[in-house]
């Protein structure tokens, strides 16, 4: 069928030991493996603090949530963390239904997430 959803994963280094993974489009059973690979790559590269930007994520399903939880666990195993940024109202509702809004720290912007992670790193 090709790429009918214009799905993309964008990564960038945000700070020392921290990286942003931005999800664009619909993250489902078909596209989630790409996000898992991107998040694992960032962790393997020494970025133990992950910021997952959901501002342009149009849809998440349970496989997507599983991948985010998996990355959170792996980040914490390395002494890091994973924060979500700017989920849409729909995705926020999904996080509430699945009780994951109590698990993931959520920020409005990448900058806000970086500030929280910097405070975590320095123990402030």
């Amino acid at each position, binding site marked *: 069928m090709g790429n009918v959803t214009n799905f993309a994963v964008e990564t960038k280094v945000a700070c020392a030991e921290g990286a942003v993974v931005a999800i664009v489009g619909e993250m489902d*059973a078909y596209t989630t493996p790409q996000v898992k690979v991107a998040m694992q790559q960032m962790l393997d590269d020494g970025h133990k603090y992950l910021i997952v930007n959901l501002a342009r994520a149009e849809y998440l*399903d349970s496989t997507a949530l599983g991948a985010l939880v998996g990355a959170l666990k792996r980040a914490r195993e390395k002494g890091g963390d994973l924060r979500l940024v700017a989920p849409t109202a729909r995705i926020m509702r999904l996080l509430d239904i699945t009780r994951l809004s109590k698990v993931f720290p959520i920020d409005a912007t990448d900058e806000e997430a970086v500030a929280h992670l910097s405070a975590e790193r320095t123990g402030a």
Partner: protein
Amino acid sequence: MKIEDQTKCLMLSLPNDPQYGVLLRKFVSWVAMLEQFDIKAIEDIEWAVDEAFTNALQHGVPTVDGQEVITVCIYPLQDSIEITVHDSGNGFDPEAIKCRQEEDARDCEFDLAECGRGLDLIAASMDDLQYDRVPDGTRVRMVKHRRTEAEGT
């Protein structure tokens, strides 16, 4: 609820392949929109059908003739919409999954489980939900009622 008139079914048969999930979501969204469900209900229906499709992908197995087909039927009714997702394999045991979730919850690990949220999401999104073992596979039957403005969603 039981549908007697099969001719009212809007049917989509899909290969057992996750790339067709987006097609299925668009299909059910459009039908729900045409049936004048509100946006929140459309989102719920889309989630539930997608999760049922994903379960069928994971737990369905080929039939004796080697086909792996997932069939979705949508029945627009006067005050509701009923959707069935039928896979061609032995399916899965929802009770087993529920038990695993309960075990996980007892261990306080559920919030960090990497799987098992799909059935919860279906249950939270739809008004009625039923799993049936049928001779040629497993069928998930889901119903969403249309709310009036006074009822809200």
